């Protein structure tokens, strides 16, 4: 297909009335890529820390997620057990290795196994890289301790998020990912932005939650943990 490649690039250059960008033009374009600048960031994405948490919760709830707040990470199992019991849901958890250290066994009602999701796991529990206040969006990264399928296959997705990880705008997460970039670049294989549980309105515009992904998204916000 290199013939197609050459043809397409030549057509583009002919249409733009030039050859490949000059060294000077290319340098300017590389600068734009190497030091990316944000464009317009809405004021609502630039609020300070205490207001950010409130905004994140409000926006996540607007998108039909539910949110529980706990003081420390040790309180998470109890909050999860309470949520599952209150909603009549099975208490069998498939947890991401990243959150396997949480003392799940202290809640005798829960049984937790770490690993990837199968088609029949009812509840998946994961951590999150960040929460974005402007739209109540969770940012999850794939990796050896956080398989992507856990975010999508189980009927109920529970996300444990340290309140300190809530940022204002999407661009804040790009900045921290770039700062931590290794040899594979700033991004893992998959970055998932998740805003509420899965849904469809494809039949007569009727909004229904629980299309192919989770029917419920529950966020457990940990106040006293710095992430």
């Amino acid at each position, binding site marked *: 297909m290199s013939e197609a490649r050459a043809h397409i690039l030549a057509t*583009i250059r002919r*249409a733009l009335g030039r050859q490949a960008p000059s060294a000077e033009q290319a340098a300017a374009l590389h600068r734009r890529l190497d030091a990316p600048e944000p464009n317009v960031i*809405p004021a609502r994405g630039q609020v300070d820390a205490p207001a950010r948490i409130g905004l994140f919760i409000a926006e996540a709830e607007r998108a039909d997620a539910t949110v529980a707040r706990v003081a420390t990470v040790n309180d998470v199992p109890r909050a999860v057990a309470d949520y599952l019991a209150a909603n009549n849901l099975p208490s069998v958890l498939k947890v991401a290795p990243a959150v396997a250290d949480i003392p799940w066994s202290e809640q005798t009602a829960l049984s937790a196994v770490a690993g990837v999701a199968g088609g029949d796991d009812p509840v998946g529990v994961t951590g999150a890289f960040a929460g974005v206040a402007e739209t109540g969006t969770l940012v999850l990264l794939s990796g050896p301790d956080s398989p992507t399928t856990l975010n999508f296959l189980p009927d109920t997705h529970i996300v444990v998020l340290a309140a300190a990880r809530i940022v204002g705008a999407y661009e804040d997460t790009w900045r921290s990912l770039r700062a931590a970039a290794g040899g594979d670049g700033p991004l893992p294989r998959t970055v998932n932005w998740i805003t509420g549980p899965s849904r469809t309105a494809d039949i007569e515009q009727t909004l229904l939650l629980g299309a192919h992904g989770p029917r419920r998204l529950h966020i457990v916000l940990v106040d006293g943990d710095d992430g």
Partner: protein
Amino acid sequence: MEATTRNFERNARKALADTKLQEALARLSHGFPAKRRQAIARLPEFEALRDAARDIKNHVLENLDFYLERFETRVGERGGQVHWARDAAEARSVILKICQDAGARTVTKSKSMVGEEIAINDHLEANGITPVETDLGEYIIQIRGEPPSHLIAPAIHLSKDQVAESFKEKHGQFPKDRSLEEPRALLDEARTVLRESFLEADVGMTGANMLVAETGTVVVVTNEGNADLTMSLPRVHIVIASLEKVVPTLDDAATLLRVLARSGTGQEITVYTTFSTGPRRPGDLDGPEAFHVVLLDNGRTTMLGGELHEMLRCIRCGACLNECPIYRAVGGHAYGWVYSGPMGAVLTPVLIGIEHAGDLPNASTLCGKCEDVCPVRIPLPRMLRHWRQRQFEGNQASAASRYGLKAWAFLARRPALYRLVVGPGVAVLGALGRRRGRFRRLPLAGGWTASRDLPAPEGRTFLALWRKRLAGRP
């Protein structure tokens, strides 16, 4: 698929008489536009974001070769592969080869308009591979053998009974007497059926909302989560994308995402926005082993630098369809091919040839609503006028409109003659219509008066009135 764009008039007549379709279109007209307005009301920066989105896309188009090469380099560095395809046939054969090399029997797909454009499903099926659409709306139209009727809501033209009928026919594994009256029951049945396909597929194929040059990343948005299951469960992930989807940086992607869902469904953002970069990494517990991106041109590079250059900014949100009085009256199928509404009327002639586009450039009142709501400010009415002009110059317009326009142009360029002809005509019509102020029926204007009255002229032409007013000035 075979284009029936040439039959727009016949298609439109049929659509207007289809009561089920009219009910569906009424639901659409009340849904998306109001939600869009509400979302925008919550975001004071929306107009500034539209400007920024337009500027990003303009910058990309000016440097399209650079950004495509950079995207390709980054994809390669992360272990993926980019394939270039000049046209639909090349794209189809690249995709088929990847599927065959992977020994694929089943391919799950998340909704892709480019996939529709190149008719990839038919090609895979003809070669013994089963493609399964996983977006609920797209799944419904796949089992009914229909094209999508809307950019983001492909089954918008159907009622729930029609869907239930199709499911009863297709899903023989369930009891015949089950109730499928509620949308919930239909969704749950599709979810059960498709869950198996997700788990057994060998290849997952998705479209792309954006390609990020900075990192070699593919961005896909959905509300259902079907694209994520499509790309994370099978061994191979194929992305099919048209080449104008490239954007420079992740920050630029964030800007476009802020206008995309708000313009389309009126959501603040889609439920799932997924950034995929290459195949699974060492140590990853899931994700595909291979990652391919097929970059499709299919005539788009011929739009660069020409009258339709700005159409390449389109991000496929669907806002122009939702607001268009013609789309809302006749629905997407009347347009006769894959793309519909104002964006379809502009784009389809490029992709299938203006000689096959029939009346599409006339499928508009040029009211300008599409341009008003376009998140990247594409001057769609100007482009529709461009195609009308091309049809006129290419002698493709109907004889009546050609001669009519020629006669009018002849007069309009000769002011004295114009006044001589138009003045008495207006006077006669004015006198005839003075009593009622309008005409119920008028010779030569039957097309107009069939469905509404023609207002009667006041008796004097605008020019005559203007001259009188000037003369009367102190």
